[in-house]
């Protein structure tokens, strides 16, 4: 146990977290997101599997996502704008990023709790 703690603290010492986030407007981002989803709806139909997750699974299992928009919404927007492979891979990337959103230094919305902003702006892979 002590060895693990020592290893972890030495890792943090070697790789200090230097990136800081900035606080942004929740009103603006809600506006941007509503525009994104509104436009996306007009382009194509939604992904049925993601809708199933949103309507059934998330209600049952609950969700504790710190990112804005939530992963499922992000995936849904991607599915309407990019091809399937790109959408799946981008959603996977986002899932991995979630626990370390603060390390990446994403913008923050303060609304009861801290939300890290990551909008699906384009279909580029990197």
């Amino acid at each position, binding site marked *: 146990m002590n060895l693990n703690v020592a290893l972890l603290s030495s*890792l943090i010492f070697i790789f200090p977290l230097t990136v800081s986030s900035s606080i942004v407007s929740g009103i603006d981002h809600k*506006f941007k997101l509503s525009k994104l989803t509104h436009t996306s709806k007009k382009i194509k139909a939604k992904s049925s599997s993601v809708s199933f997750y949103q309507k059934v699974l998330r209600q049952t299992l609950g969700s504790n996502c710190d990112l804005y928009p939530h992963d499922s919404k992000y995936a849904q927007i991607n599915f309407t704008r990019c091809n399937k492979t790109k959408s799946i891979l981008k959603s996977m990337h986002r899932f991995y990023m979630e626990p370390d959103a603060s390390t990446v230094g994403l913008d923050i919305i303060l609304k009861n709790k801290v939300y890290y902003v990551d909008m699906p702006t384009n279909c580029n892979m*990197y």
Partner: protein
Amino acid sequence: MLICQRIVICISLFISFSSFANSCKDSELVFSRGEELFNRNQFLLSSIHFSNAAALACIKSNQNKYLYKYSLAMIELNEVTEAEVELSKLSQLVNPKKKSKINLIKNLYLSSNSKLSHYDQKRFDIWSNKNNRKELEEMKLSKLSISQSSSVNNYISSVKKLKLKSPTLAGSLSLIPGLGQSYLGAYQSAAISFVINSLFYMSAKDFEKKGQYNAANAAYLVFSVTYVGNILNSVNMANRINKNKKTPLQRELKDNLFQDLKEL
């Protein structure tokens, strides 16, 4: 009778003048509130204020000034079409000096190709090459003011000093799931990536051993997604970390280079 008529005319003139003055005062108040919101990065709310101020404005130059700020707020909200419409309207109403400002804004934010003066073109080129340090170092800063050229030099030296992460290295390290994320300091992501990838890989191997080839193929398929996603994640995170480290420096450079674009 004539005196009465004149008195009525005078009173109505006075009322209309005072309401006109009030409207002017209101527009200034609404505008200053809008500016306050804009400086606090509340762009949607500020755009409403600027629009209202423009509607209430009684002097044409003030109206143009408010609409210009409205366009800036629209740009911040990624409402480029709206901003372009408004700026195009404005460019027909203002003098050539202000028109060149609008052209520069259009080139900067709306991917327009308007013709710029030498000075504006120089500033635009510097800003376009902000991520290309070598190109920036080779540029001649002769047309810029002393403060502007010193801010460009400061930016170059500050970017040199930044300890940026290498996306290539992060991606290469991610061939072993989680190692790339560890290099970036994202230990939780690293742990999740390692666990998920090993889980699917081991289960695929296990199914294969037991001769359950369909299940093994399915597990391999999921593994391929999680594996590629893991590499993509570390490359993307490295890029984001680098971008976020550069952002404050770029904001400072932008403020110094384009100080005049804040107002029309």
